[in-house]
């Protein structure tokens, strides 16, 4: 057991240090700003801020980076709701119900739910991080390639839940995402795949420019055709933004379940927010009590996405701090930030740098509270962004998107990738193809292939270990059952719709 006195000393050290408090608040604000602007993500914010932390103390420096992490995850919802452009890749799911709510004139409500769910998810995962971190991290150490391959397979079966009525389109898009994920160097043999001699493709396509191209491009070109001029600004009052106690109580189950899913997914290394969001969204469909259909402005859709992606923050810090294993791509960059300050994450960190660990836990909670307050008080400011005339908005979004594609690696080739994917995406949207399965394939494709091939190499080509080991077997069975159930529902709905259409046609002919 930890010494209570030492914990209080650590907490007091953070609360009484104005530099740490200010850097946490500044980091959270920057994270929110980065998350809000399409293409600029938390990972980019952390990567860009690391040099600024050199002159700070380890706690103040890392607190700022964690503030960016929390704020970045939450900020993605703002542009997803107001512009239908996800600010971060994981905010794709927020657009499903957030934008329809905004179109119904409930933008403030949607943003309120996003802010509260993000706060709830962060605090939920913080509690898990503080009280259960060392126990939970041990479970994850038993995961081998077989478990990871099964987990990626389970992630891919989620396509069945986010599919459109035309399943061929959804699977085409999943294949497109998977194909984009395998461009580059083969992880096992080092052979070049679909690089056509271009050295920029050898490292593969980065997720950020592809996601910006997929989602920003069609929206920019669509917005350009809309009438320019000031839009009617919805009056936003703080009492309209925050959900009431009664509403929170009514949505308690989605809040708890999706936060738990996000935390567990975050704890499992190399998974990330996107998987957590898609998984939570599909599970939330089953437990919702709100009569509004999903995809048409159901608040539970926003809760699922936002609570899950922010609860990944705390979950991902569990293996990072206790084992030195990053839980997702953002914590991988964060790991670099810790090491720059001479800290070696792992079990010894809790013994040798206990004050630092307590300081980080405290800073994370401060970051979560700051994020909620900023989300409430800056919502008017962010709502003003969407009320700006299209002529300014289009130019601004184009510039920020292009900087977003370029900034992380400083390579102009990423801007080109954004263009090519954007043009393709424009045609896909016109043909009513769903884009979310492409993101799912892109995120999971390389992981699934790498783990599956490594697993088969270890088993000398035999699939049996997947069925003889308990964890992969359970995950695969769950995946297959989930897939079949979702497909059955989709096909049934599709047949019902086509029968209705045929009935209408014959009635018209009659």
């Amino acid at each position, binding site marked *: 057991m930890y010494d209570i006195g030492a914990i209080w000393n650590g907490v007091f050290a953070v609360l009484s240090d104005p530099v740490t408090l200010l850097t946490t608040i500044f980091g959270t604000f920057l994270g929110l700003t980065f998350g809000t602007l399409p293409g600029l993500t938390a990972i980019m914010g952390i990567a*860009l801020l690391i040099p600024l932390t050199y002159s700070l103390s380890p706690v103040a420096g890392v607190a700022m980076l964690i503030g960016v992490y929390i704020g970045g995850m939450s900020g993605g919802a703002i542009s997803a709701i107001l512009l239908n452009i996800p600010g971060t890749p994981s905010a794709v799911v927020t657009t499903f119900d957030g934008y329809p709510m905004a179109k119904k004139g409930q933008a403030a409500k949607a943003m309120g739910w996003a802010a509260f769910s993000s706060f709830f998810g962060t605090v939920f995962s913080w509690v898990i991080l503080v009280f259960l971190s060392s126990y939970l991290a041990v479970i994850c150490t038993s995961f081998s390639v077989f478990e990871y391959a099964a987990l990626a397979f389970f992630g891919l079966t989620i396509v069945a839940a986010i599919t459109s009525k035309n399943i061929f389109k959804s699977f085409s898009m999943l294949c497109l995402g998977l194909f984009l994920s395998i461009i580059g160097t083969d992880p096992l043999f080092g*052979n070049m795949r*679909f690089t056509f001699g271009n050295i920029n493709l050898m490292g593969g396509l980065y997720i950020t420019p592809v996601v910006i191209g997929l989602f920003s491009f069609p929206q920019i070109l669509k917005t350009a055709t809309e009438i*320019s001029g000031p839009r009617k600004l919805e009056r936003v009052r703080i009492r309209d933004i925050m959900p009431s106690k009664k509403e929170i109580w009514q949505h308690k189950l989605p809040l708890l379940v999706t936060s738990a899913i996000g935390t567990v997914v975050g704890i499992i290394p190399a998974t990330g927010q996107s998987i957590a969001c898609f998984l939570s969204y599909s599970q939330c469909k089953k437990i919702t009590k709100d009569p509004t259909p999903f995809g048409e402005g159901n608040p539970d859709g926003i809760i699922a996405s936002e609570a899950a992606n922010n609860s990944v923050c705390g979950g991902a810090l569990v293996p990072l701090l206790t084992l030195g294993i990053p839980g997702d791509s953002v914590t991988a960059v964060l790991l670099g930030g810790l090491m720059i300050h001479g800290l070696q994450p792992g079990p010894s960190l809790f013994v040798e740098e206990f004050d630092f660990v307590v300081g980080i836990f405290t800073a994370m909670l401060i970051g979560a509270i700051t994020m909620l307050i900023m989300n409430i008080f800056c919502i008017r400011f962010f709502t003003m962004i969407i009320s700006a005339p299209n002529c300014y908005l289009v130019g601004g979004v184009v510039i920020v998107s292009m900087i977003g594609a370029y*900034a992380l690696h400083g390579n102009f080739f990423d801007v080109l990738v954004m263009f090519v994917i954007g043009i393709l995406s424009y*045609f896909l949207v016109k043909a009513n193809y769903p884009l979310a399965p492409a993101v799912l394939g892109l995120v999971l494709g390389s992981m699934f292939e790498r783990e599956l*091939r490594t697993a088969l190499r270890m088993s*000398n080509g035999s699939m049996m270990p997947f069925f003889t080991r308990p964890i992969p077997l359970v995950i695969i069975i769950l995946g297959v059952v989930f897939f079949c159930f979702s497909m059955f529902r989709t096909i049934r709905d599709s047949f019902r719709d086509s029968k209705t259409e045929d009935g209408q046609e014959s009635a018209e002919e009659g």
Partner: protein
Amino acid sequence: MKERTQKIYEVIVSLFLIAASIFMLLSANESSKTAWTTTTNELSTWWFPRVILSVMIVMSAGVLFIALRWLYRHRKDGQKAGLWDMFHKKSVLTFLCMTGYAVLWRVAGFSIGTFVYFITQTKLLDPSRSLKQIAVASLLFTALLMVVFSSMFRVSFNEPVLDIIRKLF
């Protein structure tokens, strides 16, 4: 009309995806002849891409079949497809502006490219707005981006023209 237009786009997109997948499959077959591999019983470099591309062809063929069947069934509806709707004048000009911005960014540098692009794009979408007002907005926006990204976050933007001016003075 909208549904007919969408179905025609489905035909175009699915044909494109089938053609692209076939091309990639052929490319994979060609590359696999020279690819390094082992004799052990494991999945080769090209196994996964082949499976993905084959599934993509089947799925796109499914989309194509459904779209063609719909078009055949509704051939006598007398609907006209608004195929050129997607090539709206402002969309095309915005796309050209974006391409121009990318080129200008490379040739003249980020600051000049951003300043010129913002003015052009805004004037294009709202010609009634005064040029002076747009130029001020563009200048402020470009300056803000430079301060945030270049000075604060140390993003390295190429500035060939500004570099020459700096050297001269």
